[in-house]
Each structure stands twice: as structure tokens, then as C-alpha cells.
């Protein structure tokens, strides 16, 4: 292999060397930060929860950094550029979802748990089975999300660094994986958090500059910008400005959209890597402030993507976007090139990479914490293990997860990223959220209810996806090309009509939680329930920040 990174093969725009230099600067800066942060990584609370000493605003920025993945930056801007208003619908679901976390989950979870989602779910139920179920669904969500990011890294490379051959892309995926392992091993949660903060600031500033630039081109007249986008998109025309272009075609696609909307709004508050971030602050008041900061940053960012999406439609045009190597994902980078030439493209490319790195590091630390703390520490060792022993296992796990992610990413390269992210949200909304809400608010809830809800939600989501058109049997009516994961149009075993399983799996998981509970004779542990309820609201006995 002759250094494929250095050979600009596929780019017709930009300068790969500029992109690589800017990206290398980001990596060096974040590595320096991670090594600085690692000096205080002593206890389990340091490694898993950053010593619980981040402030609300810091954590809020880090949450935004964790949440705004490359899929939401490049994906939503591209979806708006091509599908107009229907792309905007994603960002609304992703934003409104935060209110569930703010009002019902963040503070109560911070007050009752230590490191993981499973801490809260197993608080007053039978420890081992519930913890196991919660850990499995945590690992499941992290795996799908991780795969999506790693696969996305491969696709981005084609566009941004001019690496078009598969071997070269695989090397870049491996580099991303190794960097992420380094961040997590060296920096733990503290280092990961700082990487996310740096990335969030860069991302918002980068998108903000582009937004102002685009608006300035249209004398800050949004209506003018929209008009230009319509003029440049003869195929879509006026439909670009109202819903229905992507989802309004048939009754089935309309139902699919409701299903997606449901998973988006209920998924966020069940994403384990988001939940884990609430443990990095000293108390519930700071958890509240973090969510409030996160909502403002995420909301403003999505408003930027609205302008960028229509801006890309107006300035670049749908034909050039569709012809570019990354298709819809290339809308924002192409717009950057049109506006600021290769330097701005380099900056935006580096920011997109930083985005993948930061999200992937956050997922890795969540998955390794869940394995080390829940499965190894509490289930295998029954809590008879020192914090140091657990952290050592967490570090090994991070390496294993990193390697699995690299291999998975290489295989998944080219797969539909949005589908993998939507799958992660659907699992989170079905398997995690019902049990979180039931155990916080329903006195009678018991072990069987939790197990039925978690396993039922997880299994139904995955089964429905496997037998949906996403995996087999979706054919483009015009080109007769397969739109499914299995590209052989002869293989078709789908029977579930929708791409998104949420409309079935989420109500089913709530129902199973209720049904399992009322059919079980397990008595309510009144003392543990009292402790959980009192602690969740008052913060008594909550884990304190680590003082160094």
C-alpha cells in the first residue's frame, strides 16, 4: 500500500493537504488537552464521571458535542438541501426530545445513580437480572451508534481527503479508531469531555460563520434565500418549502414519518451516552443547567443547519450535490468551498472529523463503563471489586470496543448511516425509556415488568428492522436499483412495511412493562422505593464531586 492518504484521487474540489493539516492540528491540540486532563484520573469516579466536577455550562457544551454527530451536521444540511422542509423535520424531533430529558429524567437520574443507566434501573428491583438487561441494551445502542459513526468516517474521507479506494478508507477508519482509543484510555471521561467541548465550540463557530456568510449573500433576507433555493431546484420547486417531498408520497410513507417522529422525540432521553453525561456534574441543579445549555446550543445549531441546507440548495444546487462523491452528505462541504475556498472547506472538513472523533469517544467510554461497572463489577464480581480493578477492566474493554468498531466500521463502510442512527434511537426509545420512566414514577413497577419491557423493546425493534424494507426488498421505481442493505433485488424477505419500527415497538415496550408488572407477584420493596423516590427529588445521599 503506497500511502493512499497522500494521493488526491477523487476530489474535484478543495485541497486534501490543507484538510489533513487542519485536521492534524485539531488532533494534536486535543491530545495535549487529554494528557493534561489525565493527571487527575485516579478513582473510578474520575475515570467514569470526570470526578463529577464539571460545571453545568461545561457539561451542557459537552452534551451538545456528544449529541451533534456528523450525521446531524452533514446529514441534516444535506437532507434540507435536497428534500427541503422534510430535512428540517429531523432537527425538530432531535431538539424537542431534550424536553423529555430536562423535565423527567436528567435530575432524578443524577440523584439516584452512580455511573450508568443500569444503576438507576436496578435500584429497587432485583439487581442482577435488571442490571444485565440494562447493560445489554446500553451496549446495543452504543454498538449501532458507533457503527454509524465509523461507517460515516469512511464515507467522509472519500469526499474530504480525496481517498476513494477502499483500502485507503479502511486505513482512515483505523486511524479514527486508534485516536478514539487513545482519548478514552488516557483521558477517561475528563479527557473525552474536553474533546467534546472543543469540538462543540468549533462546530458551532464554523456553522455560525457559514450561516452569517450565506445570509449576507441574500442581504439577511430569509425569504430571498428560500426563493433562490427554489429557483435553483427545478425538480422540487415550491415543494422545497413545505413538508411532504420525502415522506408525503403514499399512506405508508406518511405513517413511516409518524413512526420516525415518535422514535426521535422519545429516543434522546434513553440514549446511554447522553444519560451518562449527567453524572459528570456535582448535583442535580448543575444537571438541570447542563440540559438547559445543551438545548440552547443544539437548537441554535439546528437553526444554522436550516440556513446552510437552503443555502447549499441555492448556491451549490441539487445537481452538483447529487453528483458529488458523498451525495447529500457533501452539501455542507461544497457550500463551504463555494463561500470560502479551500481554507474554509479545510476547516469544515476538520470540524466534521472532529465531530466523529468526539462522538465515537463518548460512545466508547459509555460502553466500556457499562461493561466494567455493570457486567463485570456488579454481576460477575457481585460488587466485590475495588474501583481500580473495575477501571482496569474498563480500559481493556475500551481497547476491545475500539477494535470491534474499527472492524465493524470497515465492513459497514458505505452502508446507510441515517438508518443506523435511527435504529439506535428506536432501540433507546423502546428498550430504555419505558423502564426509566416506570422505575422513577410508578411505585408498583417490578422486575418482571422491567425485563419484559427492556428485552421486548430491544427484540421487537431489531426484528422489525430486519424484516423491514431497509434490509431487503426496497426497489427504486424508476431505476430498478435496490435501496436496501441487501442490494440483490432477488432477495426479499420483508413483511413489515415501514422503515422505522418505533410506532410498534415503543407502545409495545410500554405495554409489556405494564403487563409484566401486573402479572408478577413480586412484592414492592417499599424501603428501596422510598429511598429512590426521596433521593431522586431531594438529592440526599447522591454521589458527590471528587475533590483533588
Amino acid at each position, binding site marked *: 500500500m503506497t500511502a493512499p492518504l497522500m494521493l488526491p484521487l477523487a476530489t474535484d474540489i478543495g485541497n486534501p493537504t490543507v484538510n489533513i493539516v487542519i485536521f492534524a492540528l485539531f488532533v494534536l491540540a486535543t491530545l495535549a488537552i487529554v494528557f493534561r486532563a489525565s493527571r487527575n484520573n485516579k478513582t473510578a469516579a474520575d475515570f467514569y464521571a470526570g470526578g463529577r466536577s464539571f460545571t453545568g455550562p461545561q457539561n451542557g457544551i459537552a452534551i451538545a458535542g456528544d449529541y451533534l454527530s456528523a450525521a446531524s451536521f452533514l446529514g441534516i444540511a444535506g437532507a434540507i438541501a435536497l428534500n427541503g*422542509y422534510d430535512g*428540517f*423535520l429531523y432537527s*425538530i*424531533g432531535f*431538539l*424537542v426530545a*431534550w*424536553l*423529555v430529558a*430536562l*423535565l*423527567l429524567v436528567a*435530575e432524578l437520574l443524577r440523584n439516584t445513580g452512580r455511573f450508568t443507566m443500569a444503576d438507576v434501573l436496578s435500584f429497587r428491583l432485583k439487581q442482577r437480572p435488571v442490571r444485565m438487561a440494562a447493560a445489554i441494551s446500553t451496549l446495543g445502542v452504543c454498538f449501532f451508534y458507533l457503527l454509524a459513526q465509523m461507517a460515516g468516517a469512511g464515507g467522509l474521507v472519500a469526499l474530504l481527503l480525496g481517498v476513494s479506494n477502499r483500502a485507503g478508507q479502511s486505513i482512515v477508519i483505523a486511524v479514527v479508531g486508534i485516536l478514539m482509543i487513545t482519548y478514552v484510555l488516557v483521558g477517561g471521561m475528563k479527557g473525552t469531555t474536553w474533546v467534546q467541548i472543543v469540538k462543540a465550540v468549533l462546530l458551532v463557530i464554523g456553522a455560525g460563520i457559514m450561516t452569517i456568510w450565506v445570509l449576507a449573500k441574500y442581504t439577511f433576507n*430569509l*425569504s*430571498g434565500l*428560500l*426563493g433562490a433555493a*427554489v429557483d435553483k431546484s427545478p425538480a422540487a420547486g*415550491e*415543494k422545497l*418549502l*413545505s*413538508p*411532504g417531498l420525502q*415522506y*408525503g408520497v403514499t399512506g405508508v410513507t*406518511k405513517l413511516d*414519518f*409518524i413512526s420516525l*417522529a415518535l422514535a426521535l*422525540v422519545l429516543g434522546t432521553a434513553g440514549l446511554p451516552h447522553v444519560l451518562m453525561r449527567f453524572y459528570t456534574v456535582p448535583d442535580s*441543579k448543575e444537571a*438541570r*443547567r447542563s*440540559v*438547559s445549555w445543551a*438545548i*440552547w446550543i443544539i*437548537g441554535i445549531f*439546528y*437553526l444554522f443547519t436550516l440556513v446552510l441546507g437552503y443555502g447549499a440548495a441555492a448556491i451549490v444546487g441539487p445537481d452538483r450535490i447529487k453528483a458529488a462523491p458523498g451525495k447529500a452528505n457533501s452539501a455542507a462541504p461544497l457550500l463551504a468551498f463555494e463561500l470560502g475556498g479551500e481554507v474554509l472547506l479545510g476547516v469544515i472538513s476538520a470540524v466534521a472529523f472532529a465531530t466523529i472523533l468526539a462522538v465515537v469517544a463518548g460512545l466508547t467510554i459509555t460502553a466500556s463503563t457499562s461493561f466494567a461497572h455493570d457486567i463485570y463489577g456488579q454481576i460477575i464480581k457481585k460488587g466485590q471489586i475495588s474501583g481500580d480493578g473495575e477501571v482496569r477492566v474498563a480500559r481493556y474493554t475500551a481497547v476491545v470496543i475500539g477494535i470491534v468498531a474499527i472492524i465493524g466500521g470497515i465492513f459497514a463502510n458505505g452502508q446507510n448511516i441515517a438508518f443506523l442512527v435511527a435504529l439506535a434511537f428506536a432501540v433507546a426509545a423502546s428498550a430504555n425509556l419505558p423502564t426509566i420512566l416506570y422505575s422513577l414514577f410508578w411505585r408498583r413497577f417490578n422486575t418482571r415488568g422491567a425485563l419484559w419491557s427492556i428485552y421486548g423493546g430491544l427484540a421487537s425493534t431489531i426484528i422489525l428492522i430486519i424484516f423491514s424494507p431497509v434490509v431487503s426488498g426496497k426497489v427504486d421505481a424508476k431505476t430498478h436499483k435496490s435501496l436496501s442493505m441487501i442490494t440483490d433485488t432477488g432477495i426479499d424477505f420483508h413483511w413489515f412495511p415501514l422503515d422505522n419500527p418505533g410506532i410498534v415497538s415503543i407502545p409495545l415496550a410500554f405495554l409489556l412493562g405494564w403487563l409484566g408488572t401486573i402479572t408478577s407477584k413480586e412484592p414492592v420493596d*417499599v*424501603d428501596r422505593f*422510598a*429511598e429512590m*423516590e*426521596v*433521593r431522586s*427529588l*431531594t*438529592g*440526599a*445521599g447522591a454521589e458527590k464531586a471528587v475533590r483533588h
Partner: protein
Amino acid sequence: MSDMRDRDLTTYRDVQLSPDFSELRRRFRRFVFPMTALFLVWYFVYVLLADYAHGFMSHKIGGGNITVALLFGLGQFVSTFAITMIYVRWADRRIDPDAEKLRHQIEGAPQ
């Protein structure tokens, strides 16, 4: 539960049954449950309109290119920001002081 210092409240169960805690829980739930219902209903009204009322949503406002759909969408942003601000202000004032008082009673720190 040896860390309960208050004479009357010796277990979490006692705290849970105390009038002060019941009042705090009632106040919390009477705010967050209706608020959750409100934003979910508003979100799904919007989703259903976007899905099934294309004619209404594609109306243009005031001769420009701003559609009803766009205003509704931006309305979701405005309501999310507003609910966030209202809740944070409310919880800072109406939950934190009482929660802190109960916490000190339980943990035995000076009030």
C-alpha cells in the same frame, strides 16, 4: 440508614411519608407532567399537520417565500426554548430550596 439525624425522620420511608416531602413531590409532578403533556401534544399536532395537511402548511405568508410550515417549525424551536427557561426558573425557586432543606434534614448537615 444510620445517616438519618433528625429525630422524627429516621428512615427514607419516614421522609417519604412526611408532609413536607409529599408537598414537594406533588408540586414537582403538578408542574412536569402537564408540561410534558403540553409539549408532546404540540409536537404531535405539528407532526400530523406536516404529514397530512400539506395544503395548509404550504400557504405563503405576506407575499414572501415564508410558508406556514416554516413558521410552525420555528414555533417548535421557540416553545422548546421557552419551556426550558420557564422550567429552570421555576425549579430554581420552587424546588431547590425545599429539596435542600429536606436533604440537610436527612444527611444531618447544618440547616
